[in-house]
């Protein structure tokens, strides 16, 4: 069951999308989301969808994986769209009992749904094509100006890197411990909510114990390699913008400007 979590899973590859500078991808993804939220126009959204489909095609990500990443937010999407459909005042289309469906409600629901779905698709695409390490690397670069206001950017991104690095390890560990306790007859699937919560103790205790042990070992290992924070630290892989990055930036910028224009013109 834990293996089904796909958010933040990196699929190695050698496509155009994989080769892009993580900083560029991160910024483009961020701008894309902003543009999604400031526009509310059918043609603009069609263009946004096209943008994502193109990304999926170019990065050779299987659409199935993308749909899988949408599964956990399906409830949220349904909930917001139902609320929007029934609670927004406007031109009434259908009325039954105390409920009424308005045209404005339907439209808002549609925009909200597309927005959330495209937002998740774009971030998933970013996650699938960028390794967590280069992602935090990009973040460190982009947040570097915050160093001026005494924000510990390097420490923050190191924490992120470690946290991300340990997600698969912890998932694997959890799977192992779960299997081991199942072999001792543990039952996680039946009983009421209290019984189920109690059934988690045999998993959580060993998981905590091993997390602390791992943290301790990692800290020692880092100290052995004379880690002492970001000051004066050089990098193995220096991020550098290439031709691909400029092509991608220009293409994205044109698409986003088009989306905003379409929204302003209001086709």
């Amino acid at each position: 069951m834990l293996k089904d979590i796909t958010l933040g899973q990196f699929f190695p590859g050698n496509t155009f999308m994989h080769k892009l500078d993580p900083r560029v991808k991160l910024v483009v993804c961020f701008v894309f989301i902003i543009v999604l939220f400031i526009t509310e126009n059918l043609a603009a959204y069609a263009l946004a969808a096209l943008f994502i489909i193109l990304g999926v095609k170019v990065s050779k990500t299987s659409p199935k994986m993308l749909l899988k990443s949408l599964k956990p937010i399906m409830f949220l999407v349904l909930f917001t769209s139902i609320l929007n459909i029934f609670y927004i005042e406007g031109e009434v289309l259908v009325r039954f009992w105390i409920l009424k469906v308005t045209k404005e409600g339907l439209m808002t629901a549609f925009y909200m749904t597309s927005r959330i779905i495209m937002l998740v698709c774009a971030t998933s695409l970013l996650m699938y094509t960028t390794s967590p390490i280069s992602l935090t690397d990009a973040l460190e670069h982009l947040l570097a100006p915050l160093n001026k206001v005494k924000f510990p950017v390097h420490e923050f991104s190191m924490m992120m890197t470690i946290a991300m690095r340990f997600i698969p390890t912890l998932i694997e560990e959890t799977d192992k411990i779960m299997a081991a306790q199942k072999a001792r007859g543990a039952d996680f699937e039946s009983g009421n909510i209290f019984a189920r919560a109690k059934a988690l103790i045999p998993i959580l205790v060993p998981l905590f114990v091993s997390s602390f042990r791992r943290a301790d070992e990692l800290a020692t290992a880092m100290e052995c390699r004379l880690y002492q924070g970001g000051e004066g630290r050089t990098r193995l892989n220096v991020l550098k913008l290439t031709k691909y990055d400029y092509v991608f930036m220009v293409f994205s910028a044109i698409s986003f400007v088009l989306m905003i224009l379409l929204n302003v013109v209001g086709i």
Partner: protein
Amino acid sequence: MGEILKLENVSYTYGAGTPFEKTAVKDINLTFNSGDFVAIIGHTGSGKSTLVQHFNALLPPTSGTVYINGEDINQSAATRRAARFACGLVFQYPEYQLFEETVFLDIAYGPKNMGLSEIEVKRRVLAAAEAVGIDALTLEKSPFDLSGGQKRRVAIAGIIAMEPEILVLDEPMAGLDPKGRDEILDMIKNYHDKHKTTIILVTHSMEDAARMANRIVVMCDSSVLLDGTPGEIFARHDLLTKSGLDVPQITSVLIELKNRGYDVDTSVYTIEGAKEQLMKLRGKLC
């Protein structure tokens, strides 16, 4: 001695449909008899650990069937649960699954899950603790205060306390010092002699397999490469070396002698057997 565990054309694929798809077990047919002591050998990544998780229905085979006492164990949740108790599986590094406040409570976790009475649980915990050599004083300690070797024993006791018909141990000696290894091996051997439980030992040490088992199954690249008595297995040292495994040291000495033109039997894997061979050779030469 009847059949107790049977695998029919069992295959298992991890992550089917993702880019990480990997067949870990391929078309396995195996039958284990009651009271056997079987060693499953293979190098890292040969599918041993995946295979044993099919024995107690932790992993449902992608295709094929697993039977315990003639019954398909993957029919329903109830049969799967029954299989967990019929076939006790000790995982690799089992000490990492300890969680209770005291050693006693931790060993009691399995039997309690079986829904046994308090008296029966207590009897089983004490019997299991005795079998693995844990004394009464230790039973009241926290499992986190024990040494590595002792933790391992407690974890094994947690499975033995369920009194399974089949006891599967996945690399129970991994990461222990030579003394700890010998102690665990002797403990398993004694347990087998006393209770006649079917034991399946997963290992990559030929020495251990030769010393303990009356049958050896060699896994290579997700399939069974060889299956037979230790003598039969070690006679095929050419095949073993090719699949990245060693023969016991004493056998390799005899193989080297044979290569140099002396007439010895290379299927011998015990010191006694080798001594006999060498004495015979000496008799012939002098």
